């Protein structure tokens, strides 16, 4: 724990950031005060729109000019005021006194410059070292972030590296000049859990070695539990609550913090439902998908995206497919819905084989299986009203326009939105509401099976909890079967009856969720569970898992 008596590395005092230069512009940040000390990690937690990223960009002096303007308060970095610093001074401070790493390692590096040179740029801008000394320092830093074959990676372009490797490069770039303050803006959100675990421990390790103060921005309570010394909870530009990690997780004083914690799905699977005797609605047998890359000359490459996947789903049940990126879980979902054609194997939908029938013959079966996608911001046509989007499916199957629109109104109410939302456009809704609309659209055809492909992954936890509840309720009311694809074991634990764990296109383990997620038989499943951030905490009950009666279900 850091010595609270020393001067803070970062001291934000009553900061206000408004939209535009006018004095009455809306306040995005409304009077927040936080301090980060040497060697300490402060987690800034909040849902989307809470202003946590704006806070970090203000500190770096990177706010979009003219759009967002700090209009009050102060930001002091090791005693020096940032808000009034000149552009020149800010440039000098960046990378030397303060550095930042970002959420998307895939896009945060310049794709046309080798990564070594991108790190080198920091040294060239801020030091007078010669080329040899710079390279030595870079390679040394790359070793500190545990990159393999540093010479080779030094000369590689970003697209040759994995997401985890790119994030390591970003960290090396940020820390190469040993800044006093590291701002990490959701640095692991775009990474798989196993990679996330490595990156988190890397940040901890480097912080320990260099005494860096870390301002860590995240929306994920699990990550908070892993890395924070202190926690600051933000909501709509205001600070809700600050305190040491343990205090905030055990005794949150504010209602909002309590709700936020309560919404975190537990890793402990929900009590299993009775064994189902209902008929099987969906079956996949030895389903495989092989992508062939054809080369102009020479041999092509083969990628096995799904390898002999077999699964069954009964009416009224939820089957989860869990796995990391590239595990083939989405490929399987898309083959089952026939958005792509499987290379081999069979899919039986309500007793009818659909894997190899032609697109035309498939048409009547399509309405029995519908899909909800991950990103509600991109899965609805922005120029079509919500009602028309929902009604389009039934109209294609011969329902009159008037009836389809009537049904659309009913469905909107079913998913908890006002019926008059039919005439509005997607941009008038929040992410959670859009996902409800996407669900209504999928339900419009009365499908037997609903495929949810990472359907809650892009949502804030509180919204995520609501959408999960909605799916549960719809399942109870309509008896629909749900195929739920997710990378998030917490979500899987709360909604699935059975789970299939996939890795590299293969099924590693499958069985009842309560069984697989508590007593995993396979090493990979165990590794996945161990990498789940914050698994030691039972957030919803404000206590560590070990202290609670271990819910043996």
């Amino acid at each position, binding site marked *: 724990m850091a010595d609270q008596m020393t001067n803070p590395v970062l001291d934000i005092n009553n900061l206000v950031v408004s939209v535009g230069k006018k004095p009455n512009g809306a306040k995005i940040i409304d009077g927040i005060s936080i301090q980060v000390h040497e060697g300490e990690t402060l987690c800034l937690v909040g849902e989307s729109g809470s202003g946590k990223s704006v806070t970090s960009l203000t500190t770096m002096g990177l706010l979009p000019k003219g759009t967002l303007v700090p209009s009050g308060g102060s930001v002091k970095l090791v005693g020096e005021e940032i808000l009034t610093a000149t552009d020149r001074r800010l440039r000098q401070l960046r990378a030397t006194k303060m550095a930042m790493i970002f959420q998307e390692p895939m896009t*945060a590096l310049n794709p*046309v410059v080798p990564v070594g040179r991108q790190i080198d740029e920091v040294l060239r801008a801020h030091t007078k070292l010669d080329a040899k000394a710079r390279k030595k320092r870079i390679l040394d830093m790359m070793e500190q972030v545990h990159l393999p074959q540093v010479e080779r990676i030094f000369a590689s372009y970003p697209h040759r590296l994995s997401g985890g490797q790119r994030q390591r490069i970003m960290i090396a770039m940020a820390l190469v000049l040993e800044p006093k303050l590291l701002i990490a803006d959701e640095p692991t959100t775009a990474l798989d859990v196993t990679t996330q675990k490595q990156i988190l421990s890397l940040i901890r390790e480097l912080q320990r070695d260099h005494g860096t103060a870390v301002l860590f921005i995240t929306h994920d309570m699990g990550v908070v539990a892993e890395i924070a010394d202190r926690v600051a909870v933000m909501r709509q530009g205001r600070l809700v609550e600050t305190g040491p990690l343990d205090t905030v997780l055990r005794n949150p004083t504010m209602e909002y913090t309590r709700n936020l914690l309560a919404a975190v799905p537990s890793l402990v699977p929900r009590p299993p439902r009775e064994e189902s005797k209902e008929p099987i609605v969906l079956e996949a047998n030895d389903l495989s998908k092989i992508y062939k890359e054809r080369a102009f000359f020479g041999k092509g490459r083969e990628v096995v995206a799904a390898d002999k996947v077999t699964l069954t789903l009964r009416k009224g049940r939820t089957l989860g497919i869990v796995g990391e990126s590239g595990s083939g879980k989405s490929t399987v979902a898309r083959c089952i819905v026939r958005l792509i054609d499987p290379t081999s194997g069979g899919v039986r939908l309500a007793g009818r084989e659909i894997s190899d029938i032609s697109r035309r013959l498939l048409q009547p079966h399509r309405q029995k299986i519908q899909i909800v996608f991950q990103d509600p911001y991109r899965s609805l046509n922005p120029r079509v009203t919500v009602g028309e989007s929902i009604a389009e499916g039934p109209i294609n199957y011969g329902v009159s326009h008037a009836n389809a629109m009537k049904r659309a109104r009913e469905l909107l109410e079913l998913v908890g939105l006002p019926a008059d939302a039919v005439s509005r456009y997607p941009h008038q809704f929040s992410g959670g509401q859009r996902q409800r609309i996407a669900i209504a659209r999928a339900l419009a055809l009365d499908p037997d099976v609903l495929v949810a492909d990472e359907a809650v992954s892009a949502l804030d936890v509180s919204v995520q909890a609501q959408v999960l509840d909605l799916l549960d309720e719809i399942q109870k009311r309509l008896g629909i079967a749900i195929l739920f694809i997710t990378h998030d074991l917490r979500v899987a634990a709360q909604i699935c009856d059975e789970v299939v764990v996939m890795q590299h296109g293969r099924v590693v383990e499958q069985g009842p969720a309560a069984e697989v997620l508590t007593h995993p038989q396979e090493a990979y499943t165990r590794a996945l569970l161990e990498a789940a951030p914050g698994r030691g905490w039972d957030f919803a009950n404000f206590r560590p898992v070990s202290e609670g009666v271990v819910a043996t279900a």
Partner: protein
Amino acid sequence: MLGYLLRRIFAAVPVMGVVALFVFLLLRLTPGDPAAILAGDNATPERLERIRTSLGLNEPLIVQFITWVNKLLHGDLGTSLISNLPVMKMIGQRVEPSISIALSTIILAVMVAVPLGVIAAWKHGTWIDRFVMGLSVLGFSVPVFVVGYVLIQVFAIDLRWVPVQGFKSISAGFGPFFERIILPTCALSFIYIALIARMTRAAMLDVLGEDYVRTARAKGINEVAVMLRHALRNAAVPVITVIGTGFALLISGVVVTESVFNIPGIGRLTVDAVLARDYPVIQAMILLTSLIYVVVNLLIDVAYTLLDPRIRY
């Protein structure tokens, strides 16, 4: 890279083959007797027969095609019906002026337009941006002959700095070459500056919103380096495309400028040939234009791979 080049050149062969076939059929499949078309309205029967034999029109179509392609490959493009000169020679004389003007125009346009576009994007929304965009609208809307005549009036007639018109080969010395080429280059580059500046600005604005530009700024490097090293190179691909196609257009289609400045270029040769129905010349011009486009596209694609390591073929 070398393998890729060879493959691309190899792939251009069928393209040129199809063009050649089209050009060949252009004359053979037009309604009426090709010999009559070639000979003109007042031809005697003997002249018609002579043309038929000389073109081998009495042979089967396929034989005619093979003979024609064979001649083509040996640099024999036929003889002009109007001037009776070998087409190859006629074109040869016109190539230098056209290529000189195309090159100088594109170089001038890029040198002016790219910085303008970059600055406009950098100062997005300010008066500088609006000024550059205003200039570009002007460049689009003022016809090239107006610019040309204004330039001639000011610099050739009033100030007497340069000759009014004409073209001198560079082999006659750089001075005479330069003073004659400078005005047409300025006139022509107007619209290309407008086009390339707009394209550069749009591409830069896209790229400036990218995460890696934010990363570059977070490193504390200066704005010039952010713009040039990080943004411009990523914005280059669409800009290169415009420059490349612009260059191809410049070689083959600048009739107005050639007329205003009285330059014996390819554009005027084409127009004269079309007006006079000089079929052998028209055929040669179509072939030449296609070849230019194929080569320019190849160069554009090669430029892509040099600029962006992710692009591999």
